[in-house]
């Protein structure tokens, strides 16, 4: 591997990322599956970096799931997107920061469509007025939340209490990075580092002390694929994709996986349990899985946030292996405590996948 070659490509794919005043939009599924991540993102931006980040309570889904699942028509999707823009315009913001990769893809796709077909934009503006009476301005800057984190990766590193380094051996942790397909595969120019060797997560990993693992199926989809997962009969394809990735990364013995998409951590995490139950196969050390994190969780970890505040207890593959390697302290007894320390009860443990 020639790193200079990659660097040359990364240089070609740099994008403009606004440095303040963000209109933040949450992800439908992340706020359910990894609620700590979005909270951590806002906390880091406000508390650590002192940025202005605004959320609008009337924000809805971007319809991306329905759109890619073939049940929401294009015009409907664009009108909903126009409404989100209108909310931003009304709130006085210009920089859109979606938490969801698919939303990021949707917004980018819509803006690109309008750029090439202004008559479509005009039509959508008409729809929006007729439907809601709202008007909107095109966002000045659209950056995914991971782009923002990437932009401030050095600031975060400067404040970090921990590094992605094995405290016993002093060796950097081996990290698999996985980019959501809609981040840059549709519009390589819109992603940091492009589509073939995206840099957005690599930059964070390198800055925070880890070592990136480049394995053959790095570019392969996590297996969400909307239709593949949403129809139960097709879930075999979904899990096969994740399976393919795990088989490919396994020889590299990665310590952890970092993702920047709602679906990816979900599937890379949960399917490890399903694969273990179906085939008895686990991919981590000693019967553990490979812990899967969002970039916000990792940022929170290196900044020294309480792992349970980050929501790491909601992961299927237990994160303690990584916490132990880095030396991040945690109280196992508080793992399943809710807000205010209420004990929520310990979940049933899987048979084949070792969870602590």
């Amino acid at each position, binding site marked *: 591997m020639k790193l200079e070659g990659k660097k040359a490509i990364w240089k070609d794919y740099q994008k403009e990322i606004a440095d303040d005043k963000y209109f933040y939009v949450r992800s439908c599924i992340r706020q359910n599956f990894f609620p700590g991540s979005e909270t951590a993102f806002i906390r880091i931006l406000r508390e650590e970096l002192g940025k202005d980040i605004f959320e609008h309570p009337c924000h809805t889904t971007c319809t991306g799931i329905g759109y890619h699942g073939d049940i929401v028509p294009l015009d409907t999707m664009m009108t909903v997107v126009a409404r989100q823009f209108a909310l931003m315009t009304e709130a006085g913001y210009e920089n859109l920061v979606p938490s969801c990769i698919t939303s990021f893809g949707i917004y980018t796709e819509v803006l690109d469509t309008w750029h090439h077909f202004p008559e479509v934009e005009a039509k959508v503006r008409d729809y929006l007025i007729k439907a809601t009476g709202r008007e909107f301005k095109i966002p000045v800057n659209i950056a995914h939340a991971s782009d923002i984190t990437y932009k401030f990766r050095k600031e975060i590193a400067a404040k970090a209490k921990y590094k992605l380094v094995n405290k016993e051996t002093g060796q950097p942790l081996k990290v698999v990075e996985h980019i959501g397909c809609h981040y840059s595969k549709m519009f390589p120019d819109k992603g940091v580092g492009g589509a073939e060797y995206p840099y957005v997560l690599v930059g964070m990993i390198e800055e925070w002390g880890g070592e990136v693992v480049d394995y053959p199926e790095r570019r392969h989809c996590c297996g969400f694929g909307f239709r593949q997962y949403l129809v*139960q*009969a*097709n*879930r*075999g*394809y979904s*899990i*096969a994709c994740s*399976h*393919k990735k795990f088989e490919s990364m396994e020889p590299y013995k990665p310590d952890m996986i970092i993702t920047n998409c709602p679906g990816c951590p979900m599937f890379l995490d949960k399917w490890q349990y*399903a*694969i273990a*139950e*179906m*085939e*008895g196969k686990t991919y981590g050390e000693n019967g553990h899985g490979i812990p899967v994190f969002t970039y916000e969780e990792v940022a929170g970890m290196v900044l020294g946030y309480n792992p349970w505040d980050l929501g790491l207890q909601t992961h299927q593959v237990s994160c303690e292996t990584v916490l132990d390697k880095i030396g991040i302290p945690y109280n196992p007894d508080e793992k399943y405590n809710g807000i205010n320390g209420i004990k929520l009860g310990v979940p049933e443990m899987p048979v084949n996948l070792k969870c602590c």
Partner: protein
Amino acid sequence: MIEFGYNIAKDRQIDFDKNDKRISTYVRENEPSFKTCISCGTCTATCSAANFTDFNFRKLQLMVRRGETLEVKEEIKKCMLCGKCYLACPRGVNTRNVIIQINQAIEKIENHDI
């Protein structure tokens, strides 16, 4: 083991490195013209068996070359050895012998001879 209502779908991808290429090697050695096939499909177009079934000799040869040989044993039996394919082949591939050699390779693999 838990029943999820679905299984890990089998990969359709040809895994060339892992595939068993013994039949291919055997046929290449015993019928060198096997190497010159250009997958034009004339054999399949004229095939007596293909008239009645989805038997596809062009594809069968290709699958053997790629080591995708699981279905070959059953498929190959559909051939009637009539020789139309041989007469039609623009590359002069000795198709009948290819079939015969595939048969023999399968038998030899089953008998652990190769």
